[in-house]
């Protein structure tokens, strides 16, 4: 789902051709449903356009659109974000609701989970109230059958008064029937009185609905019953709209709403949802036949191994070691990077350099392109030759875990620990992603629910989460000194937890209650994994590459104007203060432009000057904690504003040098790693 979001983030400016196809469409079909029901795959089946699908719920922010030919007509198909109720809880649900209200679909297709008919029907009844033509696609029929459920869809269809089509979106089962049902359902509004609500606490809900319905005169597209119910539930957006349209009758409407809600202790949407649920339970029991009690399967037991601390934590350690350290770190960062550097770039660079030298006979301009930090050398070669393979391998592993369903399990395993540092289990995704690319992880913090949680995540990503590029070089740097890597990791973990604990105390607000759907474990589908990896790598290219090019220009300007000399001069003081030779000052400045270059520069200094074990660890700690790369800084400023961005920057700078100072003092006194 993140891939979907990111794809749309970057795709926003290039939707010209898509616009064209939707203009030719003569009708609209909206796909609606709860998260994790296979809506996106069904969308792809209908439109032929692939959209990334993921197990982690609730993070679809953007909307995908495509076209489909149905019953001789061309339709625009809209894949709305996951929705639990018409009364929106989150930004995603608001978007989904707005699409229904504003775009007035010719047909709504509710994609529901066949295994959870009660839950599905609770939403169906609400969608029926909108008065739009409705088709229910009961998806994941294969899993329902595997769970021993048999559903009488004909009887369900008859009871609801609308078509119900059993589907399996991943195998395209039932797609023809679904297309046919959609075609036939055009112009046939769903029965709006799906549920008659019983009175509560002496207030007759139906009577109030009728009175409000009678007072609505404007043209709202949604059925008057649905509008009246939303008004009674206190939906602010709907209230505003009605107040604007029905200026004369609105005061009376507001009175009725007050009469209904004033006396009650609990929100009306709770009462209504409970009543819809009761109706859904009754109907579900009528059409479902379950073959015996559900037994725990091998899949459940595997899932248990991942979620119980005693086995889950060792599994996590194994996953980190093999998938991230061995595959991304050793194979991706070492083997593949060297191949690209040595065999590809070393072949292209010399002819390209001589070409540049002939075209640009001025040395200053040559520096800009092929100098040590030039557009070619730092910008392209670094971004494409070093970072790209590392992040690609990382994203591949990440997509694999996403597809299997490991991430929600990790979230439930870590929620309790995350609470102590002001986060909830949901922050697992940006945190793990941060080890790939902090910049992307910072953008993904958007999917967290509260401002507080987003801010704490961004601070932690800035301070103590090293990205994959940086990790590679630091490992190489410290591997020669016994115990150094362990000490470095220990300090990082301590700073991470310490900063989090302080932030959790200092920032106002409470830790967000944690809830997440834990979908069944699935075998990864190669197509999904590759599509998601591709979407993220594409995002990386479009978003990050330009930032490296800008960095090249800035370094070139800095050197040309002598500003760099001044900054390096100023940095020499704190660098000496933490017990490092003055030469390393330049390393810190460059580290800001390319995060691992700092570490690589350190490596060079180590080769020529020879640093002690203590100096190596201290400088590795300082560099990891030091300001994140320029791309990360720019994205933080864009996400949270310049003031917060600069404040975080200043804080990170202070933390990095004081921790390094303290570590240097301790190691010196102990005489360790001399």
């Amino acid at each position, binding site marked *: 789902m993140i891939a979907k979001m990111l794809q749309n983030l970057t795709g926003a400016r290039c939707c010209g051709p898509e616009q064209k196809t939707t203009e030719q469409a003569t009708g609209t079909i909206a796909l609606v449903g709860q998260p994790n029901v296979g809506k996106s795959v069904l969308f792809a089946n209908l439109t032929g356009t692939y959209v990334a699908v993921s197990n982690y719920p609730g993070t679809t922010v953007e909307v995908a659109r495509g076209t489909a030919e149905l019953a001789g007509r061309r339709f625009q198909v809209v894949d709305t974000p996951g929705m*639990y*109720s018409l009364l929106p*809880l989150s930004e995603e649900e608001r978007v989904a609701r707005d699409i229904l209200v504003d775009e007035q679909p010719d047909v709504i297709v509710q994609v529901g*989970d066949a*295994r*959870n008919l*009660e*839950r599905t029907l*609770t939403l169906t009844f609400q969608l029926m109230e909108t008065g739009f033509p409705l088709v229910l696609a009961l998806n994941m029929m294969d899993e*329902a059958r595997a*769970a021993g*459920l048999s559903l009488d869809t004909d009887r369900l269809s008859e009871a609801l008064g609308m078509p119900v089509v059993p589907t399996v979106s991943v195998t395209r089962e039932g797609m023809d029937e679904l297309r046919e049902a959609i075609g036939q359902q055009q112009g046939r509004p769903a029965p709006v009185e799906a549920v008659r609500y*019983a*009175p*509560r*606490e002496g207030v007759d809900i139906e009577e109030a609905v009728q009175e409000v319905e009678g007072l609505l005169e404007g043209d709202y597209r949604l059925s008057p019953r649905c509008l009246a119910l939303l008004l009674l539930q206190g939906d602010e957006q709907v209230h505003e709209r009605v107040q604007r349209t029905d200026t004369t009758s609105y005061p009376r409407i507001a009175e009725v709403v007050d009469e209904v809600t004033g006396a*009650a*202790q*609990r*929100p009306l*949407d*709770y009462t209504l*949802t*409970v009543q819809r*649920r*009761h109706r859904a*339970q009754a109907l579900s029991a009528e059409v479902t036949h379950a073959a015996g009690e*559900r037994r725990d399967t091998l899949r459940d037991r595997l*899932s*248990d191994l991942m*979620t*119980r*601390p005693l086995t889950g934590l060792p599994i996590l350690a194994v996953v980190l070691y093999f998938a991230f350290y061995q595959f991304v770190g050793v194979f991706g960062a070492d083997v593949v990077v060297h191949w690209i550097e040595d065999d590809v770039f070393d072949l292209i660079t010399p002819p390209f350099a001589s070409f540049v030298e002939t075209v640009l006979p001025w040395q200053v301009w040559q520096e800009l392109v092929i100098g040590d930090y030039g557009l070619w050398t730092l910008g392209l070669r670094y971004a494409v030759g070093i970072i790209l393979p590392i992040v690609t391998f990382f994203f591949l592993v990440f997509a694999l875990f996403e597809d299997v369903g490991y991430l*929600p399990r990790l*979230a*439930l*395993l*870590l*929620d*309790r*620990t995350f*609470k102590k540092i002001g986060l*909830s*289990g949901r922050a697992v995704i940006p945190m793990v992603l941060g080890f790939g690319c902090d910049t992307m992880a910072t953008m993904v913090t958007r999917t967290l629910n509260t401002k507080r949680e987003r801010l704490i995540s961004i601070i932690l990503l800035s301070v103590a989460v090293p990205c994959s590029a940086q990790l590679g070089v630091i490992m190489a740097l410290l591997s020669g000194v016994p115990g150094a890597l362990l000490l470095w990791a220990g300090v990082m973990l301590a700073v991470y937890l310490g900063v989090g604990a302080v932030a959790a105390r200092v920032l106002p607000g409470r830790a967000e*209650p*944690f*809830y*997440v*759907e*834990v*979908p*069944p474990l699935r075998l990864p589908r190669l197509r999904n994994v590759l599509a998601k990896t591709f979407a993220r790598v594409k995002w990386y290219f479009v978003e990050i590459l330009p930032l490296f090019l800008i960095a090249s220009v800035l370094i070139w300007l800095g050197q040309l104007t002598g500003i760099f000399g001044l900054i390096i001069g100023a940095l020499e003081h704190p660098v000496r203060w933490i017990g490092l030779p003055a030469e390393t000052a330049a390393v810190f400045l460059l580290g800001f432009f390319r995060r691992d270059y700092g570490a690589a520069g350190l490596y060079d200094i180590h080769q020529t000057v020879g640093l002690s074990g203590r100096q190596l660890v201290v400088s590795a700690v300082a560099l990891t904690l030091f300001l994140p790369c320029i791309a990360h800084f720019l994205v933080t400023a864009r996400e949270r504003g310049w003031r917060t961005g600069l404040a975080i920057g200043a804080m990170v700078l202070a933390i990095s040098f004081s921790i390094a100072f303290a570590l240097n003092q301790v190691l010196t006194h102990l005489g360790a790693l001399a």
Partner: protein
Amino acid sequence: MPQLSDKAEEILEHLWISTQEQDTRPTADALPEEELAVLEREGLVVTEAGTIQLTPGGLEEARACIRRHRLAERLLSDVLDSSDEQLHAAGCKFEHGLHHGLQEQVCTMLGHPERCPHGKPIPSGECCRRKDSTPGQVLVPLSEMESGQEGVIAYLHSDRTEDLRKLMAIGALPGTRLRLRQRFPSYLLRLGNSEFAVDAELAGQVYVRRTGGAE
């Protein structure tokens, strides 16, 4: 103190609700004179400038009446699955049977509920402060269930609408069957055929009628 009549107890409840929950000044209008006189004689109420006031003793007695009334409603709705109308009709009779320590047992069996089915607060008793528990306890918050136990959600209770909506979103609604699969580090529950993880805070807001299934 002599046993008060049902009508007298209802007057006390009425006075409690108007003075403690609605902040109005009740008058003697429409209240039966005979019972009012009994209450006055027992020193539970006084009439001041046309309005009726509960004395400290009366306040205590009224609080106990309200507690019994709302516990009776909970009992009827959670254990006997009564409908809304049945609640109103039977609740008023049932409460008078909850005297003499029986209310403590009912309260404990119901997991010390904080609100009546209509969402009004239930005054707490000694048993709530002691956090009594009993093997026969029918209703427990999800957070106190054992791993492997099964039950049906009886009701949700939360002071925060946003928390309530989160639970509604995952489909943790009254009448839904549930099985607690794991308690630590997060609560992992199977609702219907889906699984969800929630933290201790949300788990404490779901009250479950246990049906068995302990391992």
